[in-house]
């Protein structure tokens, strides 16, 4: 899996999973906070379906954070005001980028999280599929 794919899984993982995992990493690694977790806004740019015009839909509240773990930089941006989750995410991102000793455990945990999230999404899709319309032609 690529760094970008891991980023996506980290960003959608639960805080209850990310924070203990980051704490475990920090027990054997040193961290410098390069950008402390701070909330702010991200402008959502979109393209319209009529003319492909680029326009600003509105903003989303995000928390952004950057760390350096054993000399390797890690970054995270997540929706919402989630400072602890964001710093944990940045630590994990850096750990994976730097090939940390706990990489295998991190990957296994993230694989579980991906499975959990996909299960929730699949349930939503499954419920929706049941509302597909089957037209009957009337005589």
């Amino acid at each position, binding site marked *: 899996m690529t760094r970008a794919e891991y980023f996506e899984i980290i960003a959608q993982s639960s805080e209850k999973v990310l924070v203990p995992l980051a704490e475990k990493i920090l027990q054997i690694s040193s961290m410098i906070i390069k950008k402390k977790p701070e909330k702010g806004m991200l402008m959502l740019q979109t393209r319209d379906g009529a003319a492909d015009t680029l326009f600003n*839909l509105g903003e989303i509240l995000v928390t952004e954070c950057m760390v350096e773990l054993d000399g390797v930089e890690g970054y995270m*941006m997540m929706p919402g005001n989630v400072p602890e989750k964001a710093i944990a995410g940045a630590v994990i991102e850096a750990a994976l980028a730097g090939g940390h000793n706990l990489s295998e455990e991190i990957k296994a945990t993230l694989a579980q999280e991906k499975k959990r999230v996909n299960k929730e999404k699949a349930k939503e899709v499954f419920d929706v599929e049941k509302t597909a319309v089957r037209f009957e032609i009337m005589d």
Partner: protein
Amino acid sequence: MGFVSVKAGWDAVENAEKLVEQRRIGHDAPLLTLPQIKTQLRGAVDKVMSEGSLYDEELAALAIKQAQGDLIEASFLLRAYKTTLERKGYSQPILGKEMRVLRRISSTFKDVPGGQILGESLDYSLRLLNFNLMEEKKTETEDIEDNQEKDTLREFSYPKVSEILRKEGIVVTEKKEEFSFDITRESIVFPAPRSAILQSLARGEEGAMLCLAYSSLRGYGPVHPTIAELRRGYLPVRIKHPITGETVKIGEIRATECEAVVPEYREKQIFGLGYGLVLGYNERKAISMAVLDKTLQSTEHKSPSEDEEFVLYHIDGIDSSGFVEHLKLPHYIFFQSDLDRLRKIQEKSDTYAKK
């Protein structure tokens, strides 16, 4: 008469504020929690996020609680809060065709590729007051028949109906505008670029937009469209990773998108397209936006809904409520001036009458 500065009423103002708070919590009913608002007043949360122009369910719920259900006030609170936040940057352009669709209907063809998915909807049900909710107890909701393995995620995206029509050569391809105007950074100058129009509509007040769109449908405007596609679901939010430069996904937003077709003549008879996209689930607003996008493309300017300045200056709920409600503030000097003028005119009228 000159202006006179006065200072008074601080106690009255403080006590008035306390009274509002007393009325909010001074009763025996359980106090509202943010999870209750987020999960059970979803329409209100989505309206406030869209009109406050800030996607965050937690803050929208807080604003609704603080505003005691006054949704324009709640949207104002969100907009005001935004001024305290730094803008971290811009997302990569979001495309409606990437939506993880949870509802999708078309009024143009019954057999649209991918089919019609009703999702959660009461559009085709009898809507009457449900008195059972007055004494409701929490029970397990009835699960839709479930005997499938749900661990694997199937992609749930659909081709856009407008793209299918465009390939058939029956929908116009508009000129692309790469420049993205930002109405939160610059004042609109008319005629406004399309990006400014769409941004204004996206954060407009649902009721005002509904009124103007309805006026067009009723004949006070040129547009009465057919909905090519109305869809809602999750759109991916992506950014450029500042370290790797790669595009990464940070999460998803819920959104509603509407594309509406209108017959028109441009060298040949063809369908024009109106576009609506709003934060959260709000089909009424997305449809109204698509109608107004199309009325504003008109060159006739015969009705209010075709007038850019009229539409864009009057659909913002925060602007309009602020201006209307400022009438409650003291206007003593101005009124005194009106009164003086009125008396003088009356005196002159009396004098002429006597002559």
